[in-house]
């Protein structure tokens, strides 16, 4: 038997819906660079040339950029195309990452974002010739207000974390206007790391509160924590366990009694859109992640957008400028906002991302509820079929995501990271490992509505198979992945002696 063929067919590498395939090697672009090669030409200069040393002074001119690439167009196309083939992507299959909402990124959104007259507009150009852009922003605001049940919106924040900060700044400004900004913000121990980080930047102190035995806010004891020095509670709903906070109305009431506000991290909005509205259940201010719920592409780590939606009492404090429609029907950026918290970034926002989110919302219209229902259906279907094989630490109704733990597999020395890595061999991206912090060995799974029944079934089969492997052949799982171009990488060496750029030999 040809050992190579056997190797290709080995269950380590070819399993479930995946098979190994030839992929191209590729070095760094700098390693292919050679003097005299070019990938782009400019039209000839149609005005007299200027000598920079004479025009600027030699102290202001630079030498050639050492080590900068010199390659042809074909080499650039090949280089990045090859690199792309080493990635996983939503276009290839499911990303069951909890709280990331990796749903389909509609292609028409890419097309409209690139239209001449939209991609080309300068943010400082006069409002008279920007009515199209301003209307897009205004229309998106209206949609988001409708979906969240809120009164006022800002589209400025560049990501969820910046949205959190913006919301907290608005809370501070509001409380200051009431006489006392207070000092603390309550954060559950199940919260995403950006929450406490944002609190500190807003100048508040984090007070961690322990979740109860159901992984929810300990409403019975909440009153003790909500002192006159607490500005707000920052809550994710559904929680990072994928469970709706059933006593949300009570939680909001307790806070409001004490003059504190309820902030909602909208990362899990994919369980709520069209079914319920945060504005109805007591939320005062929240952010949305357009790169999650609203389908804008993740792009390997951004761009995103984190619009903030708020109740009327917080409207005066919105970041400036505010997108408004004037009585004559035209749109404008209103800079006359004396109580505004200020600007959180230059210009009006990540317009290209906002535009894509509007395109997504227009595609669904009021039918957005169907997407939410399918997301919750998929998560519960997967949960039901995996319950026999994995430990479920919180036996509560799941919404759009479910959290298992590696407790059973741990008895054979196999942990959540190992199972995740083995999932790669099966052709799936891992689920979220080791988060939320309140579940040791967490396996957080969110399929989103973009997965067909077939893909869900393939995922269930893969996870079942890995559970069996963890039992019978744990080493196979512990040393996964077996089918990727590189194996597990030495993260310790990368952190001890960081090499963060290429240098010429």
């Amino acid at each position: 038997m040809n050992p190579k063929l056997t190797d290709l067919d080995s269950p380590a590498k070819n399993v479930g819906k995946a098979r190994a395939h030839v992929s191209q090697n590729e070095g760094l672009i700098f390693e292919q660079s050679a003097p005299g090669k070019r990938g782009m030409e400019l039209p000839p200069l149609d005005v007299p040339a200027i000598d920079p040393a004479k025009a600027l002074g030699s102290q202001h001119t630079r030498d050639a950029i050492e080590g900068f690439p010199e390659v042809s167009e074909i080499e650039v196309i090949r280089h990045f195309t090859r690199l792309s083939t080493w990635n996983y992507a939503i276009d290839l299959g499911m990303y069951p990452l909890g709280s990331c909402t990796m749903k389909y990124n509609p292609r028409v959104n890419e097309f409209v974002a690139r239209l001449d007259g939209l991609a080309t507009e300068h943010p400082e150009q006069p409002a008279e010739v920007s009515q199209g852009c301003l209307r897009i922003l205004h229309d998106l605001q209206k949609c988001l207000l409708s979906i969240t049940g809120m009164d006022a919106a800002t589209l400025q924040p560049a990501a969820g974390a910046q949205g959190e900060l913006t919301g907290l700044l608005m809370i501070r400004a509001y409380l200051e206007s009431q006489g006392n900004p207070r000092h603390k913000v309550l954060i559950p121990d199940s919260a995403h790391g950006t929450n406490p980080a944002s609190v500190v930047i807003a100048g508040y102190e984090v007070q961690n509160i322990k979740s109860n035995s159901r992984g929810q806010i300990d409403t019975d004891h909440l009153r003790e924590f909500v002192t006159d020095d607490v500005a707000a509670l920052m809550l994710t709903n559904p929680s990072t366990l994928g469970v709706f906070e059933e006593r949300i109305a009570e939680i909001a009431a307790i806070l409001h009694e004490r003059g504190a506000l309820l902030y909602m991290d909208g990362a899990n909005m994919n369980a709520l859109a069209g079914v319920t509205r945060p504005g109805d259940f007591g939320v005062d201010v929240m952010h949305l992640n357009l790169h999650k719920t609203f389908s804008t592409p993740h792009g390997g780590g951004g761009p995103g957008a984190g619009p903030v939606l708020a109740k009327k009492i917080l409207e005066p404090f919105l970041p400036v400028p505010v997108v408004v429609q004037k009585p004559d029907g035209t749109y404008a950026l209103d800079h006359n906002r004396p109580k505004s918290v200020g600007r959180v970034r230059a210009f009006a926002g990540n317009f290209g991302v906002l535009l894509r989110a509007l395109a997504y919302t227009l595609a669904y219209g009021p039918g957005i509820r169907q997407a939410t229902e399918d997301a919750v259906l998929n998560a519960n279907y997967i949960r039901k079929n995996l319950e026999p094989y994995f430990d479920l630490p919180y036996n509560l109704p799941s919404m759009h995501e479910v959290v298992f733990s590696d407790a059973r597999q741990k008895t054979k020395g196999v942990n959540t990271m190992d199972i995740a890595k083995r999932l790669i061999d099966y052709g799936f991206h891992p689920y979220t490992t080791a988060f939320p912090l309140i579940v040791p060995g967490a396996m957080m799974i969110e399929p989103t509505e973009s997965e067909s029944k077939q893909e869900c079934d393939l995922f269930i089969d893969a996870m079942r198979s890995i559970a069996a492997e963890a039992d019978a052949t744990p080493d196979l799982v512990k040393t996964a992945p077996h089918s990727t171009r590189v194996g597990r990488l030495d993260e310790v060496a990368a952190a001890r002696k960081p090499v963060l750029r290429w240098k010429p030999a």
Partner: protein
Amino acid sequence: MRYLPKSPSERQEMLASIGTRSIEELFTSIPEKFRLRAPLDLPGPLSESEIIQYFQARAAENARGYVSFLGAGVYQHLRSVAADALIQRGEFLTSYTPYQAEFAQGTLTAIFEFQTLMCQITGQEVANASMYDGSTALTEAVLMAERLTSRRHVLVARSVHPEYRQVLHTYAKNLGLEIEEIGYTASGQLDRAALKPETLARTAAVVVQSPNFFGVLEEIPALAEVAHASGALLVTAITEAVSLGIVRPPAEADIVAMEGQAFGIPPSYGGPYVGVIATRDKFVRQMPGRLAGQTTDAAGNRGFVLTLATREQHIRREKATSNICTNEALYALAATIHLCLIGKEGLREQALQNLAKARFAQSELEKIPGVRRVFTGPTFNEFSLEFPRSVKMINAELLREKIIGPFALGTQFPELTKRAVICVTETTPRAEIERFAAAVRRILEKPV
């Protein structure tokens, strides 16, 4: 619905498998009174062609076909089709943050290349995987300087982009930072006489932009010396990244906060863009944002991973260097591809064309009676001129001729009324520059 891959019968099958009869049963954890009974009031649903129609109608309501002389932090530069095609590949566009390195070497390798390019261009030793934009990169650079020096006072040049300064102010006021602004001289550069040693002794950072908002280049080495002599850091913002094709990079600065939009990213009415922070190796642990590092696997294959993650929010939480999580990865990739295409010689040539066109425009405009240059300092592709009449009025007339006029300084700088910053890039044809100058001349010749 075309984005939902389930048939009605499959939904039924799945519900049956769960043991529920209707989807409503899966939402009972939401209190009854909060469950919506009617569909939301939203426009749509629209088919694909209707979506395209909607956005084409919006595009027609903007400045399509106009020529622009605006810079002010966002620049019209050449973009390549190849770069745009590559970032539309699903494996880049629809890929997640590369936490699972074995499955994301494409993204991680490209980030490593981006980090390298940013160091080469800025003359610094290490750069991160991107920030939201130049304005927030500058704010984070200042916060970094505060952490590094344990000082709370910051000196910011008024010639830094007004919106960048506004963002800094928004963040600084809740963090106990004291921001003091310093003026400019007749050259348009920072007034160095205002940098007093006794003030600098308690200053975390001196913050300048180069080329600055007026288009003038600052004297970076001299500023660095003055700052360092008193233990302060020099933070330099760069909004027009193409300037680095011929302008000497701020290598003496301690932290560089750059906007990378000029590297092939469309203006797109304000974003998304790509912020860059570049600094010295010794400051890397105080640097916010993601970092890709080189390493090997057990078989000795080279690979890249996200590293030094203990600086970041998901590990450090309230003690993190920043709250940043999602950044601008796809646009860092776009800039990387663009720079690889335009290359060493191309970037230099592009910068030279900008300089030449701007000087040409300036000389044409200065021929108009009453139009005078404002500052004496050296400029790249933006320059400030004084006009005999209100810039607002001139721009209103220019708009009628499908010309978007220069940035009027009077609103942001009350002492600089009737002055504007004109930007000319390699994309502005000579004929349009001449048309612009002729139009300005005509407008100024009209009786008041």
